């Protein structure tokens, strides 16, 4: 046990590259490791499981309980906050309902995008392989399960590294760490209790607030997606590895004439969102960089627009994308 920990520690301490020198047989290693990624992506969606996990980013720690089941083609998931203000999220396929008992608010939204696609698309996997060196490491124990460790080492400084622990039996992601340029952990998620498989009752997937929420304030977040074939924006210059994968317009509730352009750039794993909206006339738009947990946020004015760029990437990346954004045809 301690020898293995020492080995893992050695991986952390290595200066360059992030995960330490590693004797590799190149191609086969990578293929196997990528296959693991595929397993991870599908396992979470196809298995029944219940557990408790802890998420940490910077100084925030959050413990949650999750129940996940698949029944007749419908994927249902319940997420419950175990510390701080009580919250519950119920997901059925791509419909999400969030309950906030403290503010007596219930929020419904539809999640398109990644969840609608089967696991990882081939081009996504290719993109990951292009921008990260992916390889298997040893097997460790997490929450009572044997876990295959996978390392995703960034090939440049525009993205973070990842370390993943996947259950050797089912491929379910048990633990994950995102690692920064200075080898500091940016965020971590890990199951502390877990049971995989078995039947899950309907009751376990219902919100305890379902009844009383009838009397709460109700919100709905909606978005309309415009087709990518009418692109309005592009990154001019280099934000290496980040390709535009989505562009859409979103309507904003309660904002008169409020419409927002949302563009997503991705390298297959990390993504950066760009939000563009009209600036208020004659009001100077501030420019700045800030951070929300594992996410860096950069904002600036661009012509008559206000641009906000954010993503789970190093600050340099969001800044670069923000600064090289240009309208097509201009």
């Amino acid at each position: 046990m301690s020898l293995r920990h020492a080995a893992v520690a050695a991986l952390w301490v290595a200066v360059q590259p992030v995960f330490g020198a590693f004797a590799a047989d190149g191609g086969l290693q990578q293929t196997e490791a990528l296959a693991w990624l595929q397993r991870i992506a599908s396992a979470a969606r196809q298995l029944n499981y219940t557990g408790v996990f802890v998420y940490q980013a910077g100084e925030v720690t959050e413990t949650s309980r999750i129940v996940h089941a698949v029944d007749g083609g419908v994927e249902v998931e319940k997420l419950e906050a175990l510390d701080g203000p009580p919250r519950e999220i119920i997901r059925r396929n791509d419909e999400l309902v969030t309950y906030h008992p403290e503010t007596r608010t219930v929020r419904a939204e539809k999640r398109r995008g990644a969840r609608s696609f089967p696991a990882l698309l081939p081009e996504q996997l290719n993109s990951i392989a292009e921008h990260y060196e992916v390889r298997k490491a040893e097997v460790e124990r997490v929450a009572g399960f044997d876990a295959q460790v996978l390392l995703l080492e960034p090939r440049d400084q525009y993205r973070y590294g990842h370390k993943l622990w996947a259950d050797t039996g089912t491929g379910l992601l048990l633990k994950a760490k995102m690692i920064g340029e200075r080898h500091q952990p940016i965020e971590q998620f890990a199951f502390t209790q877990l049971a995989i498989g078995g039947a899950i009752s309907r009751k376990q997937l219902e919100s305890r607030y379902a009844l009383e929420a009838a009397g709460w304030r109700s919100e709905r977040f909606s978005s309309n997606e415009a087709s990518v074939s009418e692109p309005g924006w592009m990154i001019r210059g280099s934000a290496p590895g980040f390709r535009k994968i989505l562009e859409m317009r979103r309507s904003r509730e309660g904002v008169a004439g409020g419409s927002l352009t949302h563009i997503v750039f991705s390298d297959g794993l990390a993504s950066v969102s760009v939000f563009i909206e009209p600036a208020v006339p004659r009001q100077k738009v501030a420019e700045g960089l800030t951070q929300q947990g594992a996410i860096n946020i950069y904002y600036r004015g661009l012509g008559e627009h206000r641009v906000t760029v954010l993503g789970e990437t190093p600050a340099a990346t969001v800044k670069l994308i923000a600064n090289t954004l240009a309208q097509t045809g201009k």
Partner: protein
Amino acid sequence: MGDREIDQQLVERAQRGDKRAFEMLVVKYQRKLGRLLSRFIRDAGEVEDVTQEAFIKAYRALPSFRGESAFYTWLYRIGINTAKNYLVAMGRRAPTTTEFDSEEAENFDDGDQLRDVNTPEAELMSKQIATTVNETMQALPEELRTAITLREIEGLSYEDIATIMNCPIGTVRSRIFRARETIAERLRPLLGTSKDKRW
């Protein structure tokens, strides 16, 4: 160290993973919370369920308790909300907020006995405990009986009791302890014969 400081210490230990510390808080306040909730919920069995539910909610919310108020004040609010939600979920009228949101309400102890617990065994146990305690009290030497009465019923501090009984504080402490232990000795066999020996 006063009562509030003790609660704060127990909370902090519980926040660092010591479940027993939280159990001690439960033991300390379960009757008090139960009495509070029984003002809104008639059935004693339901009161018990809701009280337990409130303690569990309190346990889960413990990381966000910052000690800005007394623990019982915070627990009290959780208890009230749990009871409210329970009544609403059962389709019953939830009491209006003025009935129990005032500061005083939280300390108001109307002395009403909790309505009899409804299972025959629990009711029997309750009566047996009461009888045993009373009998033992009668048989105690007077100075022990007085000391524990002044402490538990009148709520006086050791210092005040020492003044009233005209003896050193150390003697007060020892007398109260001996009274408790004598009664405890009589109760242990009684409680030990209940269905589950392990607490």
